[in-house]
């Protein structure tokens, strides 16, 4: 009886929701994986004469795919060396770095009541600024690297702060402006990559030279791994954002603005200035994501520098409930899916797009605990007092 209660307690708690949400999404993704699998298609051709073939083909395809996802993102038990075994996890963290940084930025703005969809553009600006510093100077590492990272922060902060400035002075809706600024930033990057500002001499393709060695974020685990110092910066930023939002007067004012702008105004908080600050901080963090990409991961500036990190960051921020540690967890989840997707495709031929499907269903399920409960017939949590 007591044990039953305990089980009930566990399954009614909110902690199991993410687990079941992931499970539900994988089930859904599994259907698509099986659907796309050629062996399944073949075996289903004679389903009625030998159903066992189809079933085993379905199981093979689905388990094969998720096995590959696991091996590609967490632990590769098939690898020949210990290094190879843990490499997937480091890859996951490497992908999680920019996503989390940008996600933190968005979390700051969402918490402050501003809907910044412009991380994509802010990442690009951060990357451009960081790349510029990384390419143009020759300085000792201890000066150059931090300077390049700060330049990235500055680039994102300027591009984001401009949105805040427009909102503060003209009331322009930040959703519209940030959407438009994403396009503008990308076009500007495309253009600049074809001019001497970034394009390498004797290079025809729109790719910059690699940034100077002294400006790079050094690798953490050595040559075999892509994990770089950006991870440390990212982790530091998780703590910094937490501190900013919960232990500093600026963050306090951000949150006051987000929860109740009119009370904030009545209490003497300078709303227009806060708009600008919020967007600058938010953009600055996204800009650091760009810097981390250009100084740590890619080491050169390309048109694809921002990837889809800016959009992933929206989901990551919201999935992490705008809490820095939540954002970190969500960022790692997304990093894992991104890194696992590659092996899933290389090993099992599963189309990459499946990851988008799984990613988005996970978020939907996590966001809607009652749905997950009803899908798995989990008990309801005890009524919370209104």
């Amino acid at each position, binding site marked *: 009886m007591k044990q039953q209660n305990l089980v009930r307690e566990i399954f009614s708690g909110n902690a199991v929701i993410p687990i079941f949400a992931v499970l539900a999404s994988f089930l859904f993704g599994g259907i*698509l994986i099986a*659907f*796309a699998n050629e062996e399944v298609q073949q075996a289903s051709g004679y389903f009625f004469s030998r159903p066992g073939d189809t079933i085993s083909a379905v199981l093979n395809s689905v388990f094969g795919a998720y096995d590959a996802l696991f091996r590609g993102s967490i632990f590769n038990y098939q690898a020949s060396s210990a290094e190879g075994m843990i490499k997937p996890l480091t890859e996951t963290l490497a992908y999680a770095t920019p996503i989390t940084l940008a996600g933190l930025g968005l979390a700051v703005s969402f918490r402050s009541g501003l*809907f910044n*969809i412009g991380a994509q553009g802010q990442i690009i600006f951060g990357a451009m600024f960081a790349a510029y510093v990384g390419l143009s100077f020759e300085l000792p590492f201890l000066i150059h690297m931090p300077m390049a990272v700060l330049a990235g922060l500055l680039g994102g902060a300027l591009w984001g702060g401009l949105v805040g400035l*427009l909102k503060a002075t*003209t*009331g*322009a*809706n930040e*959703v*519209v*402006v940030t*959407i*438009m*600024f994403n*396009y*503008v930033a990308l*076009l*500007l990057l*495309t*253009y600049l990559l*074809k001019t001497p500002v970034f394009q390498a001499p004797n290079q025809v393709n729109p790719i910059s030279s690699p940034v100077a060695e002294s400006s790079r974020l050094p690798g953490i685990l050595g040559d075999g791994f892509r994990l770089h110092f950006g991870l440390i910066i990212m982790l530091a930023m998780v703590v910094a954002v937490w501190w900013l939002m919960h232990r500093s007067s600026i963050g306090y004012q951000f949150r006051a603005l987000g929860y109740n702008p009119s009370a904030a105004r009545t209490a003497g908080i300078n709303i227009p200035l806060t708009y600008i600050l919020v967007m600058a901080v938010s953009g600055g963090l996204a800009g650091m994501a760009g810097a981390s990409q250009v100084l740590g991961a890619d080491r050169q500036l390309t048109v694809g520098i921002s990837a889809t990190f800016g*959009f992933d960051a*929206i*989901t990551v921020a*919201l*999935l992490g409930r705008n809490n820095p540690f939540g954002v970190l967890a969500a960022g790692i989840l997304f990093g894992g899916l991104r890194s696992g997707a590659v092996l899933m495709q290389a090993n099992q031929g599963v*189309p990459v*797009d*499946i*990851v*988008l*499907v799984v*990613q*988005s*269903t996970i*978020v*939907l399920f996590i*966001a*809607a605990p*009652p*749905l997950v409960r009803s899908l798995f017939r989990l008990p309801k949590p005890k009524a919370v007092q*209104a």
Partner: protein
Amino acid sequence: MKQSKKTPIALMLLLAVASLIIPNVQGQQLEVRVATGTDLFPIPNIILPSQGFVAVMLILMLAMTALSVYLTFVRNRKTPLIAVIAFGFGLVMTVLTWLFSGATMGITTLLAGSLALAVPLIFGSLSGALSERVGIINIAIEGQLLAGAFTSALVASVTDSVLIGIFAAMIAGSLVAAILAVFSIKYLVDQIITGVVINVLIIGLTSFLFSTLLADNISILNQPPRFERISIPLLSQIPIAGPVLFNQTLIVYLMYLAVAGVFLALFKTRWGLRLRSVGEYPKASDTVGINVFRTRYMSVMIGGALAGLGGSFFTLGQVGAFGKEMTNGAGYIALAALIFGRWNPIYAAMAALLFGFALNLQYALQIVGSPLPSEFLLMLPYVLTVVAVAGLVGKVRGPAAAGKPYVKS
């Protein structure tokens, strides 16, 4: 101290910029081609002396600026919208004259193309209007458009019927909207999360199905018939407007109907009154016996159907095939148009047309050979939108309850 001085100052600044153009258009002329061959009466190309024309336009702009200054500073009154529009017309004409001097401007094609680019945006913004007016923020327009584009291509290919194709697109769009509705209404999930995530989901699903299904069986699954152009007798023969507006495919005519229909439904019918009341103050609606939830589901899903229809324009109206991520952000632009158009279907359609015009204009400029790199021209529609939102629209107020789930105690 009283009237906002923003408008007259903005006009003065723009006028100053525009007047810089004059020296650059010396001694050239602008040829405007109007005729399309189907006109009721033939119109020769209009040849305007560039400088003279620009001068006339500048005088118009000057007059409007003066009016605005007078009204604001002397009479302490607002500048009428018509004056701003007239100023804008003058400005656009001046810039066009400058850019097209010495070349031929095919005004009809320019406008027809603008309309074509705007059609899916307009449908998208109608979806947004129906959804946000009832209190559900709709970021998922992109997903609705994409689902409509995919489904219509697939279904129309299989059935060889555009009508079944658009019908399927509407169903697909409203299913996507249903996801938005269920998650935001029943599960109280943040509407913006839901919208963003739905877009990712639909991109994933359609790309997945495209590469596993459509790409290998193009002739069966991805070669839909396209809409035939239908000329409306007489109307289509009016110069400029005729070929632009009335020699179009069914879906464009449906768009006209949809804009008018949504506008009338929202502002002139019982259904619309209830819908808007739910979007403003759901509890008040509840107290007069309106079923808040049902109204929200209905409206969001009808909106989704319209966006789905808009999506089918990509495949059945324009290009005759589905391509991965082919909507390419149109849903977000539609959302911007909706906000820019203050949640009003007609204004939103106008905003979408403006965007389509800017987009198409920059193509025209690329073709006549502009002195600017293509990237800067490609920025034009986006920058223009920001300028418009910041300079002209400013602070807008959406439906009061948008984004807030309604919870009954």
